[in-house]
Every structure is written in structure tokens, then in C-alpha cells.
């Protein structure tokens, strides 16, 4: 909290006063650094939410990377196929395609894990390999998606100095992602669905004894989780890059998992962790742009990954995963 406040204050000072003349301060707190942070944060936050939905219900999802990639590819295919449509219609179709394919990958993971009782780590790996293989094989290198989502300024709020430029002048999926963090939090902790989902992830037998269909909740939430990961992929294609590239997720699915763990399986915690990782990516970018040459470039490029490793290894003992995650649940009555 204190750190967040410090960054906001610094950002306002640096971007509105003479402090902005110091290069290193601009690198750390400039509007461009903060904008880049948010752009890097969105897919990580969506990926982490995906992980939270699955793991809170008891299904380990290391396949986020693959679900993202599949979502990105689906968004690209849908966008290219409808290049002749009005831009917004075509982009919206891209989002729907990303959600659908992501959901399908989630359903596949759930089916492997529940119906076929496959080890969930193996199943997740299958999802990643499947997505990487299929998208690379089917990718048409000559295809070009025309146009991507552009920023929408929120009336009034976007006029706030610095904050308005960073938070309230963004393309639609960015807003959607931030709203989804709140929705998932409220859903998990203040609704019947959330209470039952968490019971399935903590103590499935207890959930079963009060009449909750554990595996139905696991199917549902893993599919929803897949959709969120798909949306993260859609963001990369339709909002960030504008095109598809082979293996364009570049480990974001795994950093999402780190953000989920670092955020203690809580939506806002995960958003905070995703922001930290996003910020290091922005820093890497800004340092290179500012022409910092007295440190080898490779060390700067390492920054996001080093921070991820330190954060997760330092915190992993202090957070607590859902008790029943990764375990197949079978009703006792069904064992006859």
C-alpha cells in the first residue's frame, strides 16, 4: 500500500514538475513506463485469474501458457477472416473466438484431469505442447490482421493529470481485465458459487456431504479459467501487438502462475504481483530506450525473470495453496 502510494506520488511529481528532467526518474516513473507497465500487467493478471479460478476449485492449471497461445491464435484467425468487416465487429469476433477456444482448452484440461484422472501437471503440459504445436503448424505467415483496439478515454476521469493518462486512457480489454479482477474477487468470496467453489478446492468430501457436485464445479471453473487465459491471448493479438507470432506468449502463462502464487491465490494479490512483474518488464524496456549502456543489455533483459524468481522463492513458504488442489475426487458411493 505504502509502496503503491509512493509510486503514485512520484509519478505525479516526475511527470508534472522539473523533476522530470532527470533521466533516471523518467525511466522509473514516467508516463510511458507506467503505461507499459499496465500493458504488460494485463495478460499476467488475466492469466493469474485463470489460475485462481481453477486452483481454488482444486484443479492445478499449469497449462495457462497453452490456453493463452490458443486464444491468441483463435483471435488472430477470426480477425484475419473478417478483415473486411467493420473494425469493431471484427475485433469483437476475435475476442469471442479467443474466449471460445480458451474455454475449450480449459474443458479439455478438466476432462483429462477429472474424467480420465490424468495427473494434472501432465495434462497441463499436454495443453501447452498441443497449443504450441497446433498454432505453429496452422499459422499462415502471410496473413495480416488489419487494425487493433485503440484507446478509449473515459470522459472526465481521463483528464486527471498523469493518472488519467495511465489508468483511464486504455483500450477495452485492459478495462475489462481490471473489472474482472473485482468480479472474480467478489464472486469467490461473496457469492454462493464462490463459497461452493472454494469448498471443492479445500475439502471436496465436505462439499460432497452437503450435496455439492464437486466435479461439476471443477468442470465449470476450469472452463471459465480457460476462457480468461484465452482472453489474455486475445489481448496480445487484438490490443497489444495486432498480429500473431509463433510462441508469442513467451512464458507469460508461467509468470502468471508466479503472480498467482505470489498473490496468495487472491485476485487483488495476483493483480499486485502481476503489476510488479509488469513494472520490471517496463523498466527493462525503458532502460533500453533511455540508452543505458554501462550495464550489459542481457542483464537488463533478465530483470523480469530474476524478479519473478526472487519473489516466488522468497514467498512460496509464506503463502498457502488450496488444500485439495491436484487431487482427483471420487465419491465413496461410486467406488462399488
Amino acid at each position, binding site marked *: 500500500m505504502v509502496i503503491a502510494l509512493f509510486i503514485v506520488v512520484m509519478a505525479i511529481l516526475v511527470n508534472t514538475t522539473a523533476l522530470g528532467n532527470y533521466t533516471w526518474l523518467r525511466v522509473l516513473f514516467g508516463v510511458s513506463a507506467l503505461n507499459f507497465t499496465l500493458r504488460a500487467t494485463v495478460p499476467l493478471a488475466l492469466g493469474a485469474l485463470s489460475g485462481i479460478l481453477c486452483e481454488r476449485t482444486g484443479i492445478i492449471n499449469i497449462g495457462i501458457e497453452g490456453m493463452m497461445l490458443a486464444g491468441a491464435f483463435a483471435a488472430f484467425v477470426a480477425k484475419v477472416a473478417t478483415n473486411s468487416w467493420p473494425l469493431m465487429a471484427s475485433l469483437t469476433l476475435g475476442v469471442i473466438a479467443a474466449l471460445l477456444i480458451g474455454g475449450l482448452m480449459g474443458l479439455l484440461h478438466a476432462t483429462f484431469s477429472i474424467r480420465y484422472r490424468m495427473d494434472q501437471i501432465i495434462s497441463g503440459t499436454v495443453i501447452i505442447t498441443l497449443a504450441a504445436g497446433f498454432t505453429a503448424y496452422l499459422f499462415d505467415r502471410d496473413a495480416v490482421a488489419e487494425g487493433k483496439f485503440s484507446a478509449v478515454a473515459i470522459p472526465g476521469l481521463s483528464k486527471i493529470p498523469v493518472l488519467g493518462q495511465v489508468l483511464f486512457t486504455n483500450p477495452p480489454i485492459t478495462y475489462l481485465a481490471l473489472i474482472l479482477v473485482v468480479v472474480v474477487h467478489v464472486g469467490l468470496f*461473496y*457469492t454462493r458459487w464462490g463459497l461452493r467453489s472454494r469448498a471443492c478446492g479445500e475439502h471436496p468430501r465436505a462439499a460432497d*456431504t452437503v450435496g455439492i457436485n464437486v466435479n461439476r464445479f471443477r468442470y465449470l471453473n476450469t472452463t471459465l479459467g480457460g476462457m480468461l487465459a484465452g482472453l489474455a491471448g486475445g489481448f496480445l493479438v487484438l490490443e497489444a501487438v495486432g498480429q500473431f507470432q509463433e510462441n508469442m506468449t513467451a512464458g507469460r502463462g508461467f509468470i502468471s502462475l508466479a503472480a498467482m502464487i505470489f498473490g496468495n491465490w487472491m485476485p487483488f494479490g495476483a493483480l499486485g504481483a502481476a503489476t510488479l512483474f509488469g513494472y520490471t518488464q517496463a523498466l527493462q524496456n525503458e532502460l533500453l530506450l533511455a540508452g543505458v549502456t554501462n550495464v550489459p543489455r542481457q542483464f537488463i533483459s533478465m530483470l523480469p525473470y530474476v524478479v519473478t524468481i526472487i519473489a516466488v522463492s522468497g514467498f512460496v513458504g509464506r503463502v498457502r495453496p488450496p488444500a485439495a488442489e491436484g487431487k482427483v475426487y471420487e465419491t465413496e458411493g461410486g467406488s462399488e
Partner: protein
Amino acid sequence: MTSTTPVLEVRGITKTFPGVIANEDVNLTLYPGEILALLGENGAGKSTLMNIIYGLYHPTEGEILVRGQTVTMATPNDAIALGIGMVHQHFQLVPVMTVAENIMLGSETVKRGFLDTQTVADRIIELSHRYNLDVDP
């Protein structure tokens, strides 16, 4: 339906697990207003019988009648729908959840789409005062 119809009748229930007979030809009749206590040492099969009546286990043989009707309890949901509730031993609770969350799980009090934890907590406090059982919901 007369008042002499048993609310619950269990006829010839046998339950075998691989290598163990947990219940063998158990008969039990419960009339309206009756309170029945089932005593037995550990492993006697009390919980097994209760789990069968609650639909968690399925009997190997025998039948269950509720208010004179033969019923099949496939899941606890069927039992709950017939008005059969079960209070479980402590290890059927979710450790990380609050008392109120554990109590309402499965039959939640919902207000405008959201969990109404406050009402449940108030009710728990009220009951805990009445029975001198100090519980922090």
C-alpha cells in the same frame, strides 16, 4: 397417511466394503417425534449406516423407506430433498472457512445474489447465547 407411519424405515440393509462387512441385515424404524440414539464402539458401523441413509454410500442390499415410500438415495441431494439432514464429525468441515461459512455451505442464505453472512452470523450468535455455547461465527 396416519401418524403411525414411520418417518423412516430401514429394511435389511447390508453394506460390504472390500474384505469387510460394515452393516449386516440392519433394520430400524423411526416414528414421528421419536429420538433414537445409536450406540456402538468404533468401527461398529454407525457412521456407515448414517452415510447410507444420507445417500453418501449405497447399500449392497436392503431398502430405505421415507414416510412409507421406498426411496433410492443416489446423492446427499436426494436425502436433503426428503428432509434428511446430517451433522458430520468435525473432519467434514473446511478448516480455512469461518463458522458461518461452514454452516451455510450447501444451503446458503443469499440476498440479492450475494451471500448473506451477517444474517447467518447473527443467528449463530443468538443460538450460541441460548445454549451457552460460545462460538465466534
